[in-house]
């Protein structure tokens, strides 16, 4: 979007809604502050008249010193271009904001998350329950005045470590069973979770004896809990489904079993300390997570990595994509019943790529490789040679083999074609991202739509398929591996010599006050980091827009009317990692 275009949009909006929209004039900030009462109308106008059809991220920030809560929206056009940022300010003690679910259904989980963690109430949200924490949880932990049990300090580094460090085992200081706190009148034994009842009632009315009668059978509606411990859920994830016979008539995902409040930890950490923590979000793709976070903080700091570092970053991010997609395909086949044979074939190749990560970064999965303004260390010459052999010879051969092995398989086709269909409109409205969005016929890839790093230099196609079913999501991943290999081939040929870090990497990064939203096309979809700095060593706000989390929003729509056995395949085709979903 050009400067001219931005001005045009604001002029139109200001004309249409006089006084309701003003530019955010704070130093280091961008976007527009919108009056809460007019938000829904403005969003509708933006979506219908100006092409902002994709709501990427909804989050809140607690500005404790100003006694304000702020809700931040990042809107995009599916045709491409940078973000339009809208903000609403509301008093802290009574934060109420109109819900955008009616305009962008993709706001559903994100608004629930903001309610859960920040205590911002979204008026008009159809099902505003806690989403990541349990219903008995006391308070809203991302509020700045909320403190965890065994609170030590607002930010690291903790003073107790040096110069008079007193070693204490964490189990002695945080005894098991005593590490939660709740209000004095609350007794855990005498308490029944209200949320469960709300959850079941949100599934809709349960009918007895008058279900699907069309074949002469009288069927009951029954509720089935899939998970939290279930092999199909790839971790601890729960789906509560209502069934009419074998058919799904209602589904609610329940998550948060792996929740650790990554964002609060992130706000206690210094900027650099967050880098290894991002590895643990989507633990299969730590390099992409590093990438997104590094981009966000670099935007704030105003540094740019040198050429060679940019190439190394792209090489690592694309290798990660290959790793993730072969893993996703292997697991999808597991979910379809091809127990572990395809999985083990792809793990072979994954292993070889992880060897490269280990040689480069020192760790196979928790890479912690990116730094602000560069990468941690140079890529060893022999690792680069191995990558060349892999991307030029071995991996293309193996991808073709995988294609031959699975794509034509009639059982796979019967199980996958026409199952879990998500239309283009549904995908966009629900803020689906990555392969899920592109399999539904939306050619939206951030590497092209809003290029970051040096992706504009490479020749590659955006993989897109049009049926939006499980089979197309599988095919899109296969296409994307091929496109990644194409990028890799170009990158390893043209990687220049030179520095790998702009300036000296500081352990206490100096980050000026302001906000930044850095987003990358992670293998699972749009991974965004919204970082607010107030000039101190610790970020004031650190939010992760997790693709595995938001891609679950359309799960119910995809599964409606499908058989219970297919919901496993549908979930497998979304490709979630619970470390990122639950954060």
């Amino acid at each position, binding site marked *: 979007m050009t400067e001219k275009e931005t001005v045009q949009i604001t002029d139109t909006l200001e004309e249409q809604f006089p006084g309701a929209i003003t530019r955010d004039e704070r130093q280091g900030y961008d976007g527009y502050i919108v009056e809460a009462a007019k938000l829904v109308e403005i969003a509708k106008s933006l979506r219908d008249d100006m092409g902002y059809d994709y709501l990427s991220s909804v989050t809140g920030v607690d500005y404790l010193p100003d006694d304000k809560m702020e809700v931040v929206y990042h809107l995009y056009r599916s045709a491409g271009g940078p973000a339009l940022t809208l903000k609403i300010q509301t008093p802290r003690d009574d934060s109420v904001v109109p819900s955008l679910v009616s305009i962008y259904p993709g706001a559903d989980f994100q608004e629930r998350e903001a309610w859960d963690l920040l205590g911002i109430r979204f008026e008009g949200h159809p099902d505003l329950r806690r989403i990541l924490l349990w219903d008995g949880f006391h308070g809203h932990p991302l509020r700045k005045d909320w403190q965890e049990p065994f609170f030590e300090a607002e930010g690291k*580094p*903790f003073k107790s470590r040096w110069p008079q*460090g007193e070693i204490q085992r964490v189990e002695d200081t945080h005894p098991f069973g005593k590490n939660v706190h709740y209000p004095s009148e609350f007794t855990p034994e005498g308490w029944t979770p209200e949320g469960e009842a709300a959850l079941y009632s949100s599934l809709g009315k349960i009918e007895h004896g008058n279900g699907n009668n069309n074949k002469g059978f009288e069927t009951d509606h029954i509720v089935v809990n899939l998970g939290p411990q279930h092999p199909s859920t790839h971790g601890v994830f729960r789906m509560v489904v209502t069934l009419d016979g074998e058919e799904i008539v209602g589904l609610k995902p329940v998550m948060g079993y792996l929740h650790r409040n990554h964002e609060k930890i992130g706000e206690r950490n210094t900027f650099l300390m967050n880098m290894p*923590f991002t590895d643990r979000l989507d633990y299969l793709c730590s390099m992409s997570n590093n990438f997104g976070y590094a981009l966000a903080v670099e935007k704030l700091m105003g540094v740019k990595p040198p050429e060679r570092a940019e190439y190394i970053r792209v090489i690592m991010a694309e290798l990660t994509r290959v790793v993730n997609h072969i893993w996703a395909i292997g697991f999808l086949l597991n979910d379809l019943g091809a127990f572990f044979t395809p999985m083990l074939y792809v793990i072979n190749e994954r*292993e070889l790529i992880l060897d490269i990560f280990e040689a480069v970064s020192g760790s196979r999965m928790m890479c912690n490789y990116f730094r602000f303004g560069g990468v941690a260390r140079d890529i*060893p010459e022999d690792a680069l040679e191995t990558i060349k052999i892999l991307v030029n010879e071995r991996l293309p051969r193996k991808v073709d083999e995988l294609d031959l*092995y699975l794509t034509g398989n009639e059982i796979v086709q019967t199980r996958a074609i026409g199952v879990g269909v998500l239309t283009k409109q549904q995908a966009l409205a629900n803020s689906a991202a990555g392969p899920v969005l592109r399999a539904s016929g939306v050619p939206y890839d951030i590497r092209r739509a809003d290029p970051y790093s040096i992706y504009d230099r490479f020749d590659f196609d955006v993989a897109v398929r049009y049926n939006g079913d499980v089979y197309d999501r599988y095919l899109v991943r296969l296409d994307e591996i091929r496109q990644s290999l194409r990028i890799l081939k170009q990158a390893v040929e043209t990687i220049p010599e030179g520095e790998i870090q702009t300036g000296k990497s500081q352990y206490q990064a100096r980050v000026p006050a302001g906000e930044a939203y850095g987003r990358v096309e992670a293998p699972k979809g749009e991974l965004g980091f919204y970082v607010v700095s107030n000039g101190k060593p610790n970020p004031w706000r650190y939010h992760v827009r997790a693709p595995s989390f938001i891609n679950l929003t359309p799960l119910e729509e995809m599964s409606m009317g499908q058989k219970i056995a297919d919901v496993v395949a549908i979930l497998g085709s979304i490709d979630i990692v619970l470390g990122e979903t639950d954060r």
Partner: protein
Amino acid sequence: MYGIGLIKGLGVTIKHFVETYVDDLRWLGRGRYYNEEALKIRQGTEARGVFTVQYPEEKLSVPEEFRYIPFLVYEENPDGTRKDRCTSCGICSKVCPPQCIWIVRSNDPETGRPIPAPTEFYIDIDICMNCGLCAEYCPFDAIKMDHVYELASYERSSAHIYNKERLSKPASYYAEIRPKNYAREEAARAEKEALKAAKKKKD
């Protein structure tokens, strides 16, 4: 015809099945397993057939950059005494993301000045996340990441807090596990010292 795709797919499975036996023939007499040379090829870009490593009889070699639990480097003086590289500046404990490093610094009883060496140095390895930031930002190359990854123990409450004694390893060990890094750092140090000497001479 229905089933062609299935049969093609099964062809791939058979290929994988046969490959292991072909590979066995290739290593006939020398052994496909428990053989350093074979292991390298089995785990390399030319790998074919069964990919498994017969751990613990066989072990993968770790690359130089591999990182697992920090250790403290000390210099061995010719007279057999040790000289810690660590000056207890505290940067490692400040940069540590899970804050698992505790350092105790003490003052010289005579002059009252801080002693540039740690009195105590603890790392809780249950908390350590092996990120390697301490090693990366140490200005004295005094703390480095180790290659030892077999750390299972029976007594975690006492065995998993490493004290200074347990953490300290000689510079020669460091040179052995990370020869390239060691050479680079020594060269940088020598250069710095030469500069210093030259400056002194000038003065």
